[in-house]
């Protein structure tokens, strides 16, 4: 890839995706929207892993870690969405501002 692409290109792109995911998590009141923000954050972390793996000399450790992250993201999505559906069955809403039974 001699086209002038550097590590910074990928890091800044991943930073943008991370910032958008963080904004999504912070401001959303829809629980599924929050989970989508988490997916964006995990993807940005994966971009970093693979960028460092690629520009760090072509070792495979970064790619192995990225696969672990994808696996954990899948488990997180499954559990998260199951919780969302359970909340929906109990509260008839998935607005995280409305589910405040445990708040003191």
């Amino acid at each position, binding site marked *: 890839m001699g086209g002038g692409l550097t590590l910074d290109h990928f890091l800044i792109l991943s930073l943008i*995706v991370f910032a958008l995911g963080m904004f999504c998590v912070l401001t959303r*009141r*829809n629980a599924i929207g929050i*989970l989508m923000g988490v997916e*964006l954050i995990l993807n940005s972390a994966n*971009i970093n892993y693979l960028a460092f793996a690629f520009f760090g000399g072509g070792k*495979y450790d970064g790619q192995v870690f990225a696969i672990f992250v994808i696996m954990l993201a*899948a*488990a997180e999505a499954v559990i998260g*969405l199951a919780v969302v559906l359970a909340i929906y069955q109990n509260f008839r809403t998935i607005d995280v501002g409305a589910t405040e039974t445990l708040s003191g």
Partner: protein
Amino acid sequence: MLATVIFYAIAALTVGSALIVAFSRNILYSTFSLLGALMGVVGLYVLLAADFVAMVQLLVYVGGILVLTIFAVMLTAGIADVTVSNRAVGTVPGLVTVAIAGGVMLYAITRTHWHQAALSAPAPTTYAIGNAFLGAYVLPFEVASLVLLAALIGAIVISRHEAVE
């Protein structure tokens, strides 16, 4: 040169889709834009010579997580009501927090002198990753299968209907 053009095209797709995910008032638009963001990330992985990870991303994220998310969106009510389906509150504090965190990270990225090794030609990675999983990373690999089993059982237990006595 071509790689740069492709990178910026993929970056535009990824960031544009992520923007819609973060800012759309309609949860359905957000969900389907997540498809664009994930596909853009797949393109980035290919650009970074990670063919196996790109395929895993395509199968697990686009084929699994995204479909699951769409299912969850469809199974929860209020979809048709655009104004309340994806409400966002605290936009200004959120933007300030994100700007501060992003600014700090941008400063760190631009100020650090990253060591860059000499780039090797992209080669197929599946063989090496498979060896790594059954060699140096065999314990995390096995623990991962336990995590997946626990997630599977946990999801069933959480989402099933309790039998009414």
